């Protein structure tokens, strides 16, 4: 299909990871929130990790178009190639 899965995958991790990291940053001194996770700010650390993963996926997805894959043209592209 014409949409590379790595782009939406990257975006959702960028957004969710971003939300968590920002929230973690704001609440980094709120000890009562992180008592559950034994004082570890999971939002900040895990959010940043997810953000990084999302960024890598997004960039790779942008760079490597499926059109460059060995099976070319794809069956569904055979009729109308000039779209890209």
């Amino acid at each position: 299909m014409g949409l590379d899965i790595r782009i939406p995958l990257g975006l959702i991790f960028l957004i969710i990871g971003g939300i968590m990291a920002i929230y973690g940053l704001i609440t980094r001194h709120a000890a009562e929130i992180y008592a559950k996770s034994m004082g570890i700010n999971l939002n900040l650390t895990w959010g940043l990790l997810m953000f990084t993963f999302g960024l890598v996926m997004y960039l790779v997805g942008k760079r490597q178009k499926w059109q460059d894959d060995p099976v070319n043209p794809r069956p569904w592209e055979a009729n109308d190639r000039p779209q890209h």
Partner: protein
Amino acid sequence: MTLSSIDWLIMLVYFVFVLGIGFALKRYMRTSNDFFLAGRSIPAWVCGLAFISANLGAQEVIGMGASGAKYGIVTSQFYWIGAIPAMVFVGIFMMPFYYGSKARSVPEFLRLRFDEKTRAVNAFSFAIMTVLSSGISMYAMALLIQTLGLFHGIIPDQYVFHVSIILSALIVLGYIFLGGLTSAIYNEVLQFFLIVAGFAPLVWIGLRNVGGWQGIKHTLPATMTQSWRGMAHASTNTLGVEWVGLAMGLGFVLSFGYWCTDFLVIQRAMAADSEISARRVPLIAAIPKMFFPFLVILPGLIAISVTSHMMPKSPAVSMTAAQYAALPLSEQHPHGIIPVKTDPLSGQAVLDNKGNPVYNYDLAIPVMLLHFFPTGILGLGLTALLASFMSGMAGNVTAFNTVWTYDIYQSYINKKASDQHYLWMGRMATIGGVALSVGAAYLVTNFNNIMDALQLVFSIVNAPLFATFLLGMFWKRTSGHGAFTGLISGTFAALLHHGLTIPGDSAPGIHGGWIAILHHYPSDMAQNFWTAIFAFTVNLVVTIAVSLVTKPRPESELVGLVYSLTPKPVEHHLTWYQKPATLAIVVLAMLIALNLVFA
């Protein structure tokens, strides 16, 4: 339980993406081929992740977490013995026939190899099974949402169950209706990564809390932390199954019957962009699959190892801190933070016939999320949980709409319509499938453990099936009449066996023994495994016997469908490490290593 707006925001982002993918793919759905087979254009790694994600539904996450808490690390046998060998087999030996035959579905393969009636049996039984499975997923999700009180204060409590069912049905319907199989596969990839992202920190923090794997080993009895201990006899291990039943029933019949013949998973591999990719799909899937016990079973073990001294600051679910403290860690049946089962109507604790409280093991993973995750990442954890429910449902719905359209509608109802008509029918079948699942969800209420219910459906429908495929693909003499009679007798044998035996101390009825009681099994699981073994054997024997007295099809018609008559897949252009066989060896070596570590 009250969620903060940040948790809701994270869940909302997920649902926007889920539907957004459907909308983004809508314009590519021009032919029925695009809708049902994703245009056979998806790279192997994407299909591979979808392959395990489609299987990673409610029964997997909730059921495996529950079994982990109930039986211990031995539950990982469902992955290690019960999946990996079959996945390697389907990739190396069976995929060339599925993909190479150009069949559009597994029932269609049966028609190519055997005849119309064999296909009909498989198509109808499969269609019913998918609707049931999808209904179970939906029911489990709604029940969980209700138990956790996710919508508490937003929707009146008595409507929560119904609203959850309708909402999940509409979302799954939406994205499959728009983007077909591609949309389902893409969403399954998202779900895969979200499940990993949501559960990995849970396991990490949980392990830190209980002192790592060594801490768990220290707290729990040895039978729960060693996957092969006490397998010599049914009474000495927690599953209540001896190793013959486990290896033959789960490891061979049920597992091969599921992973090698179930269109739900095979469909993902059939969407791959080439035969080599299709063969790699189950092998790629096997690698994360092998490590999933650490994500879904380990939380169950951690949940029962956590002692009450680590109390949450705020009361979670419907339990209070006092209730936590009241649950001691007993020597034989530790239950840690697993809550007592309560009657949803009266709110009273459910007691067994000896007056002891019954523990709701199905809540092992949800309780872990609430126990360890602060606001923010809790939203992610719940998203991961909901994602797994959706993937289970969507996988069944896409398999159903394909089998319905190609193998039932096109074969028996309307043979000569235009491709556009079948594309339209596929969309209608999606609506129909979702509607039937909703019906099934309301039917499924009699089972305590979702796993048991699903194993029962598998045993009866899936178990005899593998014998048919095995003989069909590897013995050219197998005839259509043989396959058909074998399949019917196998299914009948499964029913008969279930009706004549009963596990442990259950009452005759849904658990078996509804004809007469000839044999007592030590557990539900042992009964399921042996039902499968009987069904398989009967099918095998009957198919061979009938095939020997009926006329086989001419060999020229079987090229591409039977092993001995099909040219071996061309692999000259691949270097040694690109060959599927190399990947298969790597997968098997990792499997052996894992088994040795946790033996």
